[in-house]
Structures are given as C-alpha cells and as structure tokens.
C-alpha cells in the first residue's frame, strides 16, 4: 500500500479525512469480506453442531449402535440404519462400477483421441447431462429406465447368473429374486448416468494437465496412440483420476431424488441387486414428513442426516485433497 507523503500544509482534519477515505474504508471493506468468508467456515461447522444437537435424543438413547442395527420400524421403536447404509453403499458401488470405465473412456476420447472440433461439442453435451435436475432423472427413470430394466436387462442378468450358478454348482445371489424393475440395481444405473459428467470432466482436466513432452517421448519410442496414453498419460494423471472417482462417489452417496424415485423404498437389507431398498438420503426424502411429529423418530432422522453428512464430508475432503492442485491450476471453480 502506497503512502502519501505528509506535507506541512495539511491540517489535522484533512489528515483525518485522508485516513478515513484511504485506510479506514479499506480496512472496513477487508473486514466485511473476511467476516463473510469466515462465515462460510462457520456455516460448515454449524452443519455438524446443529445436527448433533438436534439428534441428541436418538444419540443419547442409542448412540452409534443404530449403524449396525438391521431393523427399521419407528412405530415399534426400532431405528436400525443398516438397511440404508447397505443400500447407500451398494447403489454407489454399482454406480461406480458402471460409471468409472465409461467416464475414463470419455475422458481419453475427448482429451487424447478426438480432434478439437469434435471434442469441444461432445464435451459440452456430456456436461449438459450434469445440468439436468435430479428429479427429472428420477422421472425418466420411472417411465423409461425401469421398464427397460424389467423387460430386458434384468431377465438377461438373471439368466446369466442362473447359468453361472448351475455351471459352477454355487449359489451366488447377485442377480436373483423377483424382477420388479425398480430396485438397487436400477438406482445404481441412474447414479452412474448422473456421476459420469463429474468423473469424466475432472479426469479430462487431469489428462489435459499432463505435459505434452510426456506424450511425445512415448511417440518417439514408437508407441501407438493408445500405448502412449496408457504408459505416459494415464500413469501421470492417476492421482487426479482417483480424485475424480472419489468425487463421483461423494455425489452418488448423497444423491436423493432420482434414487428415491426408482429404488422401490423398502426398509429391509437388500438380499440381491434386484431387491428394492433405500439409501440414507432416500429414507429422509420418503419418510421424514410422515413421522417428524414424533420427537424420537425425528431425531433419529437427524442422526441419519448427520451420518450422511460425515460420510460425504470425509469423501469430499479426501477427493479435494487429491484434485486440489489440478482443479486450482486450471480454474475449475464451476465444475460441480
């Protein structure tokens, strides 16, 4: 900050005015912006404290035992979260298994293989998928995806599972049970569609951040395009890619409406991928409004929200630590 030299002619009041105009307003402005920015940190802390406070009733009564309890029947006093934790983990895992290979394929195609005139519009279209609201994914899921799953994909998977079981004389219960169309598998598929834009966009940034001499060295050794990508680009960008996948996981775990609309909303631990189920988020969206008047039930829901918050915070902190420098250096503030 430059300081104007004092001249002998200045009176006390003119100096005071100068101070007010330059230093005081400057400091006030800095103070206001700093206070607001610190307010963001306070907000994040308040999330945890308020939810902790509001769920005290359930925490005092049951503590963390709810996490392993398999029975959810609020009217009978059972508040087990296990079905929903299982549902959350299974749907997120299905989503990742489908989304990760596809997103990496997209990232490689757009960053390494496609010419610019093609990769720009295609990349934009993939990002558009992220602009579609969750409830519309769910609506589409009810009327398009669920029938397709019920009539085509589920029966095919069921017969494949049956023939594997028969051939190996085992009893793997992955694609078994009644075929309803809605259920954890369908929810996982919808999650996959929803997290593909996240994973592919950040992986693409990670690939873009690889310096070109890396590629040129591989080409110089006679590598094909794919070999150069595999040897020198993917290995160089792997931390960013892992971060992108974990960010996708965070999104999948917290996704609410689309899952709520296709998962079937059953409060039991899923026994196969065809089972109907419930995630922590869909539980809250489905049942909170019908039970919030009972204080103990309401505080159990708030404890579920707290658990979900802590899970997603952990996932997101881990992921952001991995992609921090990457997204930072490429100015990716608007990726989400």
């Amino acid at each position, binding site marked *: 900050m430059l300081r104007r030299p004092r001249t002998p002619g200045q009176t006390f009041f003119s100096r005071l005015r100068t101070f007010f105009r*330059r230093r005081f307003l400057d400091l006030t402005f800095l103070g206001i912006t700093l206070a*607001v920015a610190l307010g963001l940190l306070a907000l994040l802390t308040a999330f945890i404290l308020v939810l902790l*406070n509001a769920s005290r009733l359930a925490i005092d009564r049951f503590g963390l035992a709810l996490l392993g309890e398999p029975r959810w029947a609020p009217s009978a006093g059972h508040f087990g979260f296990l079905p929903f934790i299982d549902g959350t983990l299974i749907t997120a895992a299905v989503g990742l298994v489908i989304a990760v290979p596809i997103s*990496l394929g997209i990232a490689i*195609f757009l960053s390494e293989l496609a010419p610019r005139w093609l990769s720009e519009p295609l990349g934009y279209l993939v990002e558009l998928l992220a602009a579609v609201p969750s*409830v519309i994914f769910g609506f589409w899921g009810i*009327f398009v995806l669920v029938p397709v799953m019920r009539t085509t994909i589920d029966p095919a998977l069921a017969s494949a599972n049956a023939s594997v079981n028969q051939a190996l004389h085992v009893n793997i219960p992955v694609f078994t049970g009644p075929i309803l169309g809605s259920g954890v598998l369908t929810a996982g598929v919808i999650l996959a569609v929803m997290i593909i834009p996240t994973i592919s966009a950040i992986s693409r940034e990670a690939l873009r951040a690889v310096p070109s001499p890396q590629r040129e060295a591989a080409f110089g050794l006679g590598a094909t395009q794919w070999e150069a990508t595999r040897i020198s680009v993917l290995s160089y960008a792997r931390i960013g890619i892992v971060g992108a996948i974990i960010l996708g996981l965070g999104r999948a775990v917290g996704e609410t409406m689309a899952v709520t609309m296709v998962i079937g909303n059953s409060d039991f631990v899923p026994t196969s991928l065809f089972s109907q189920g419930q995630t922590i*988020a869909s539980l809250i969206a489905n049942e909170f409004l019908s039970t919030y008047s009972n204080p103990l039930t309401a505080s159990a829901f708030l404890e579920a929200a707290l658990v979900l918050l802590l899970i997603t915070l952990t996932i997101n902190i881990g992921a952001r630590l991995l992609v921090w420098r990457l997204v930072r250096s490429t100015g990716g503030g608007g990726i*989400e």
Partner: protein
Amino acid sequence: MKFDRDARRRVFNWIVGVLCFLCVVAALVPLLSILYTAFINGGHVLSLSFLVSKENNVGVCFPGDPASCSVGGIGPALYGTGVVVGLASLMSVPVGVLSGIYLSEYGRNALGRSISFFTDVMTGTPSIVVGLFVYATFVYIARTVVFSALSGAVALAIIMVPTITRTTEEGLRLVPNTLREGAYALGIPRYRAVLQIVLSSGRSIVVTGVVLAVMRAAGEVAPLLVTAFGSSLGFTGVNEPAGLLGPLIFFDATGGSSLLVSAAWGASLVLILLMLGISLLARIALRNRFK
C-alpha cells in the same frame, strides 16, 4: 513375426479408440432419451395457459364429466419458484460475491486457501442434508414455523453460496494484475479498485456463476420437501408453505393419475428448456471471456 506384432498393436489401438468413442455415445444416450421423452410427453401439454394458469388445478375433473378433465397448469409453481429462488439469491449473492472477493483479492494465504478448500468441500454436501440442517435450525434453534417460503429460500441459498463464491474467486483471479496496479497508481483506494475495476472487469464470470447457481436451485427438490414443502398456490407469504416447480414434478410424477403425469412432463419440459437455454448462454458468455 515383427510385422504381425505391429499390426496387432495397430488393430488394438483402433479398437480402443472405437471403445472410447462408444463410451461417449453411452453417456449421450440417456441425455437424448431424457430430452426425447420430455418433448414427446410434455410437448403437447405446453401452452400459454399451462404456464400462466392461476391455480395448479392439475388433474381436476368435474364429477361425471370426463371431458372436463384438464392438466391444468403450473402458473403458481413458476411464481413460487421465482419468488423463493429470488429470496435465496438476495441472501446468497452478496455472501457469495463478498467471500469470493476476499478469497481472490486478500486471501492468497493459508487462511484464504483453506476457506477456498472447504467451500469446495461444501459443494459436495448432499442437498437433503442441507434441508434437514435448515429444518433443525428453524425448529430447534429459532423455534419458529419451518414449512415456509423463508426456510426453503434459506436452504436454496446455502446450496447456491459455494458455487457463487468459487466462481467469483476464479473469475476475479483472471483479471490481470496490471489493472489493479494501474488503479493504485492513480491513487484509488484499494476497496474502490476492487469494487469498481476488478469486479467490473470480472463481472461476466461472476454473473455466470450466479446464473448457474440459480439454475441449480430452480431444479432442486430434496431440501424443499422438508422446508418449503409445497403449496398449490405458489407463494402466499414468507411464513407460509410455498409451491415450487421441482417438488411439483416430484408429487405429480408419483401421483398416480395420468393427467398428473402429463402435467409433470410439461413442467419437466419447461425446466429442461430453461436449464439448456441458461447453460448454453453461460457457455457463450464464458467462451467470449476466455478467448
């Protein structure tokens, strides 16, 4: 022998290329399917009266007269969305822009970096958790009425702030330092340099961030189920429940009657067209900025 191996490598290279292209296609199929389904099912519902209807008289039939059934309209829901998202913007835009200014102009230190980091982390908070946080704050801390336009607006504001903060920060960082130095050289105080020169140079990106945040908020459902809840009248007061477009789609889509479903498709189409239009405009605005 050597020739065979090279040929195999080239074929493999080609196969991987095709597979990667198919991945892009696989991601575009759901997008196109969603657009197609919404246009087919929602297109014929869409009309001026659907958009400006006085009531969400969705699926109302006079008894004994099937011809009187109409899909009604979404006028109140559009109005409610406008008011509640507007209220949320009034809260979130000043907070987001001011904190973004701090992060870009004063926050190039450990404190600024950690605030920036946790703001990014906040963008990953599930919106339903934000909803219950607002619910708990209204019920247990403020001890006031919770199913209201106000609580809905607060929840949406919390969802909007991190996006606005980070976009403002990134946008202002792109403003060249020479502009700031030029302002100081003219003797302009720092706060005025920031407000009048830096902010106005970076305003297109700041506005884009705000628009993207508004867009996300306009399509939200989960946090509103436990806050603004829903109302067939749209907006009737800050302490009354409010009806918004997103929850309307959810309730109508799962409501069971085919008229309700038609209305939900119409509402979805409106929302999709808004989203696509806005993100296209944001894209164009950002492109001109970066080139």
